[in-house]
């Protein structure tokens, strides 16, 4: 299994220690050629505007959509969740394959970023310290989307078939629970 890390901008290298501990091979994805031969993809935290811009400019967007339709598992972290969302701030999202609506930076600027203890029954986690950084808020989930964890009323970890999205940053914690779950999809 070859896990791709979308390497256009952001915290993609931060996933490498986790993937190494999980014993899976990984590669950085910056072009169509590599995108065409990976088995799954992590879209990392970073700036969604930058990643969506270069997915388009480097002619990768259509291929990515095609590969997702063909069943490739994808995990979007924070900015990655924004890229996957069908609706972003009331407008169509960039990749747009996951039927959720999100609002960017909905919890505020960096001084409002925080850690919240959350329960994730699907992963047998209680009081998991979820790190939210200028996080998007998932306002609505569409048909077929399962919510695995919430912050108050807001979904923060959702899944539809082989697509998953977290609005917080498991890669900044030292455990590999979320990576193992993603590899198992």
């Amino acid at each position: 299994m070859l896990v791709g890390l979308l390497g256009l901008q952001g915290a993609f290298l931060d996933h490498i220690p986790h993937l190494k501990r999980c014993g899976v091979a990984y590669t950085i994805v910056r072009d169509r050629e590599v995108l065409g031969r990976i088995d799954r993809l992590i879209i990392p935290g970073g700036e969604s505007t930058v990643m969506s811009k270069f997915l388009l400019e480097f002619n990768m967007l259509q291929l990515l959509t095609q590969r997702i339709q063909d069943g490739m598992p994808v995990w979007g972290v924070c900015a990655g969740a924004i890229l996957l969302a069908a609706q972003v701030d009331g407008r169509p999202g960039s990749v747009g394959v996951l039927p959720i609506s999100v609002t960017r930076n909905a919890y505020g600027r960096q001084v409002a970023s925080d850690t919240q203890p959350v329960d994730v029954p699907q992963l047998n986690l209680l009081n998991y310290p979820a790190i939210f950084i200028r996080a998007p808020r998932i306002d609505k989930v569409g048909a077929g989307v399962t919510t695995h964890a919430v912050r108050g009323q807001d979904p923060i970890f959702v899944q539809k078939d082989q697509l998953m999205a977290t609005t917080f940053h498991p890669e900044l914690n030292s455990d590999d629970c979320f990576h193992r779950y993603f590899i198992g999809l």
Partner: protein
Amino acid sequence: MEREKINKGFAEMFKNGVIMDVTTPEHARIAQEAGACAVMALERVPSDIRKDGMVARMSDPGMIEAIMASVSIPVMAKVRIGHFMEARILEALGVDFIDESEVLTPADESRHVDKSQFKVPFVCGARNLGEALRRINEGAAMIRTKGEAGTGNIVEAVRHMRAINEEIDALKGLDEHQMIQKAAEMRVPLAIVKQTRELGRLSVVNFAAGGVATPADAALMMALGSDGVFVGSGIFKSQNPPKMAHAIVQAVIHYQDPKRLAEISKNLGSAMIGLEAKTLAVKMAERGI
């Protein structure tokens, strides 16, 4: 401790990206459209500060706020070294990151801001490992090379990045006693020296800054181990800012691919006018060590 993790984690999100100096909401939008992962709001870019002389201070909060309202990407702003009150003001304003910067005129010649007392994260400049570790020890969530701002000359940024890398490498050969000496010499706790040796790099994100003027400069700094790049005067003092900005962002993504760098570097118009380091009246990098 928790705040520290959130702030250092935020800096991770800038990696492999370009942070651009902007002086107006219009410039901020140009930067965002070109692919900047954050902007630095300031009244004058470093090359103008250098030219004008005079005391350079924190920018007008009204102007910073206008830039915050004009883009969705994070907004940084600068305070004078040691000026914790300017920092309190920017924190109250809600800026995403504070640059305690030698580009502005220092307010305190012996102390930096005690950054651990703030909720907002800070980035600080460094010329060598000692400076970098002192700033991290004070609570900086991110480090950048000082380079020599406003010169369009990459030589100082290269010197500073190489110095930090070589000093970290040299830690490997030290025994316990030598590490204690090294920590004393750098005026930091032993624990932070040991942590740096173990990691083989700084414990926070480390960007290049101070003299980046072309896509090749940006790629060079990435190849030397920078996590990303700040571009100050290099964009809006070039002939075609949107084009130069876009090219520098692409160069950071594809820094390992010389063929693509050749394409990226074509027909950009002239870069900012560079200054020879030896002729400078003011060396900003010597401020706040």
